[in-house]
């Protein structure tokens, strides 16, 4: 019993620490061919909180405009449309990936290169802002 209490306390403390936590994993941006001034960002957002959260905007200094988009197959055609937000349910995760949600980046100031690191800010509807690094691939 004596050993269980510290273990329980540890997990309780850990869950409290994680309570208001959002996490970004595997953020990548597609490298651009010469002359292309747009790209696309993918990553996984983990929502460790008990509230659903929406990603509403992205920003970065390496491009002029960022938009949230979704892509899906409809009647044999690939359809891409802007969306106003991307939902991440409580204690869940949402993946921005090829063929689904993604961040479109317009008017990039210089070509995106494989292996280079770019900084972005992700803005959520609970006014939380996450700054994260994105790897060119």
């Amino acid at each position, binding site marked *: 019993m004596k050993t269980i209490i510290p273990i329980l306390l540890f997990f309780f403390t850990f869950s409290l620490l994680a309570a208001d936590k959002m996490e970004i994993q595997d953020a990548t941006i*597609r490298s651009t061919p*010469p002359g292309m001034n747009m790209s*696309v960002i993918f990553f996984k957002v983990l929502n460790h909180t008990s509230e659903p959260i929406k990603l509403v905007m992205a920003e970065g200094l390496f491009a002029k405009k960022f938009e949230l988009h979704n*892509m899906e197959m409809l009647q044999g055609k690939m359809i891409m449309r802007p969306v106003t937000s991307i939902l991440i349910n409580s204690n869940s995760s949402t993946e921005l990936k090829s063929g689904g949600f993604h961040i479109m980046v317009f008017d990039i100031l210089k070509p995106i290169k494989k292996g280079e690191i770019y900084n972005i800010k992700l803005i959520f509807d609970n006014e939380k802002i996450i700054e994260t690094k994105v790897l060119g691939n």
Partner: protein
Amino acid sequence: MGKFVSREIFKTIIYTVVLISVLTFSYLKTKKESEYNPFRLKELNNNKITLLYFGFLSCPDACPTTLSKISAAFREMSPEFLSQVSFLFIDLDPERDTLLKLKNYTAFFHPKIIPISLSLEELSLFSRYFGISFLKVPLKSAMGYTIDHSTQIVVVSPDRKILKEIEHDTPAKNILLELNKLIVQYKGKLK
């Protein structure tokens, strides 16, 4: 009474004219489509296994994904087999994309990828022939508009038959296996 009859005659004439116009239009359109020969395009008339992919430069995901996969497959092919395959990237956005931009784009992936720019009218017939549909859609976005489009790769034999369609997200190793198989199958007809 006379007024009523003349109105009826007038209506009949209008209906007849409309009907004749619709029939003539359909006939001419069908004739144009049935007479259309995509193999006039010299890049398609090449005695090779030809792969066709329809896309556009502002396409953020499906097009670069396809070109990356196909390039990866090409890099794994023997030089002899690679010389018997041709890959055409048919541009679906001639309003915005220039041939120079297209060349820079395709060369970034693999020198084997040939960009093709057609007029909108020919593009419509060409894509329909290969079962590809596309639609320009205005967007509230910095893009202005996008092109919804079919994403399959169409495989054409050296004797001008549509052999099959490869889904654009097929892994590179599967594309490679498929192409190698077709090259062996068509050996003798390829140059």
